[in-house]
């Protein structure tokens, strides 16, 4: 066949291929193919991103005159305790949204892999994934109802004799943030579990066989084989969940509105309030830029970490 002939003629490198494409005029047409996506992206994502950075250097109320203030907004974010607290809250949430789903997800995926490879496994996968599919605001409403003083969680606690622990979980200063964290775990655990499980199915079963022959228990198996080989999947899990935590808005807005006090005030909600209620667009933009940088600062090294030993 002509294809085979060409292949034997000259082993073309990737750059060679694209040069060839360019010579054939593919480059121009190719760029036309990219253009629509690029244009939409540029107008509605890149341009606002640049504008956010631009606004953050001014003090503006949204329709009056803007005054240049340089980096003053950033200083404000870093020195006003309530604003700085939102960033700490975001990290606290990340422990719940990220560390727990990944850790617990590893355990669950391991369990499914070891003891439930049949119908039970498929059912578990589907059921655990359900919370991912519903709107986050619905999750917030449902859990707001469950965590209320007269809600199901307290009922169960009372039923098992732990009545002294009952409280309004979302209204209590000590438990509001962890309670929102629990909602996040409920939403994200399924994602991590299924992701890790899919990764596990790509691991050579022979490895597991030989480990079992050597008498390895489930924890050793997890530590020695699964975790090292699932590096890429774990990093993806961490990335998605950390972004969900740092950028959290829907769940917190519906479940607690940012209260009580500033216990669950996260950057997402603060940006919304600053920009649209207090009309301090510059300050809101500075906080937004810092949030974006924070996300990048965590996520980029994570990616690098996953590629290191490929």
């Amino acid at each position, binding site marked *: 066949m002509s294809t085979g002939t060409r292949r034997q003629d000259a082993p073309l490198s990737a750059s060679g291929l694209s040069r060839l494409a360019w010579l054939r005029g593919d480059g121009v047409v190719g760029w036309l193919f990219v253009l629509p996506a690029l244009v939409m992206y540029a107008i509605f994502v890149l341009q606002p991103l640049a504008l956010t950075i631009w606004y953050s250097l001014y*003090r503006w*109320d*949204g*329709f*009056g005159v803007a005054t240049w203030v340089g980096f003053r907004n950033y200083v404000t974010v870093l020195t006003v305790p309530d604003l700085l607290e939102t960033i700490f809250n975001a990290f606290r949430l990340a422990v719940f949204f990220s560390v727990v789903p990944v850790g617990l997800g590893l355990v669950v995926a391991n369990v499914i892999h070891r003891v439930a490879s049949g119908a039970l496994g498929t059912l578990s996968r589907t059921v655990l994934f359900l919370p991912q599919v519903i709107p986050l605001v619905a999750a917030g409403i449902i859990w707001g109802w469950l965590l*209320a*003083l007269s809600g199901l969680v307290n009922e169960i606690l009372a039923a098992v004799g732990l009545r002294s622990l009952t*409280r*309004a*979980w*979302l*209204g*209590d*200063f000590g438990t509001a943030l962890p309670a929102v964290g629990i909602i996040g775990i409920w939403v994200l655990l399924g994602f991590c579990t299924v992701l890790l499980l899919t990764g596990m199915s790509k691991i050579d079963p022979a490895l597991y066989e030989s480990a079992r022959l050597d008498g390895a228990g489930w924890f050793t198996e997890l530590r020695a084989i699964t975790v090292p080989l699932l590096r890429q999947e774990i990093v993806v899990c961490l990335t998605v969940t950390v972004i969900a935590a740092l950028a959290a808005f829907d769940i917190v807005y519906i479940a*607690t*509105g*940012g*209260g*009580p*006090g*500033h216990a669950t005030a996260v950057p997402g909600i603060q940006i*919304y*309030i600053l920009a*649209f*209620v*207090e*009309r*301090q667009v510059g300050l809101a933009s500075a906080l937004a830029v810092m949030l974006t940088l924070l996300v990048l600062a965590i996520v980029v090294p994570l990616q690098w970490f996953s590629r290191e030993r490929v």
Partner: protein
Amino acid sequence: MSYTSLRRTGLAVRGLPALLMAVALVGACAPGAGTNSSSGSASGGTAGCGTSPVTLNAYFETGFDLPFKLSAEFTKQYPNVTFDIKQDQFTNLINETPRVLASSDPPDLIRLPTMASFAKEGLLKNLDAYASGFGWDKWPVPQLTQNRVTKDGTRGSGSLYAMGLNYSLTGVFYNKKLAAQAGISAPPKTLAEFDDDLAKAKAAGLLPIMEWGSAKSGMGLAFPLQALMASVGQVGPINDWIFDKSAATIDTTSNLQAAQHLEQWIKKGYFPSDINAIEYTDSNARFTKGEGVFTFNGDWENADYDKNLSGSTGFFVMPPSQAGGNPAAMSAPLTYGIAANAKHADCAAFFFNWVGSNRTARQIDVTVGGSNPGGPAGASVPSVTAGSITSETLAAGNVIGKAGTAMDFIANATSSIFAQGWTPELQKMVGGQEDAAGLLKAVQAEYQREIAS
């Protein structure tokens, strides 16, 4: 029994016969009592809705029937006028208002829980011409001064920038059955008596006060706090602070006393333990289902309380700390405004006038809204069911009006003092993370930060 003794001592009895007499007299003598107010009745008042079809663009708060019923009645009387109503929950409404007013198709009628900053920025229509044209500035409604704003954003004087659909009154509602159970025989006449009543309720194993406090509805403890402030101190400085007068501060000695008093109530367990998670509507639902002897709320809830706790709800204005002193209460217009660039401002202004002067509108105001309809002197007095909670609040409103001790709400001092100041700080006080002094200092600092920007 306690009910009869209440009637013997309380405002209810003193007010009710007077009210009934007033109805009889006014009803018999008032000119044009049975007709609608005509559009051109006031001198120079040619503003109206015309005869060609007009659609008023409106933005109302979800969950409160009054403006919906009023607009439906208006369309019934003036069929060429229809309403295109958008509605949103309180927090969303507050958040959206600045943008909505500045948009290219702003509302002709908009609910304005706060309005001074919008007036200052020129987003609201100046209603002075309508006020003189329709004669609103002659209405015996002192609360309208709350809607006047000077050029530098101070309220209480200056041009009129918003009207009220009615004039609310806040105070203390109580569950008569539970009060009897706690051995409370009459509404308290002084603050000390009220403290005793609360202790009795607690001793009887009842929840003394039901209130809301979730960040989603805002902190309801602002009501008892302000009631206490006015009970132990003067009303003037409080209003000055709310109106953003220069050098006004909320951190005063008497306010500190009031805040400490509230702190005591919190520490004694007079409020629900989960108050920081209770939303406004939940609080009312729980109160009408018998949780809480007292609740601080306003007469806009009358219809709800009458329906769900009928015959069993009582009302009194927060008593003063000194025996025989004047009671004070928050009493504010149910503020609605017209956007500066509204397309049908004249028709909207005519609607405002109609609400205050038209007989059916005024009746709806009282029946559905539970509050005093204001309006011109000599306007029809709506009938009220004897013994209903509304008759008690209307009578109490008269007392406050005469004493001149009406206040606006401390939550309205600036556009976000409630969400960013009172709510988080009061929640912290409930959680034991802040004391009374810290509360006032923090709120004052937030207030100054917002005024400055």
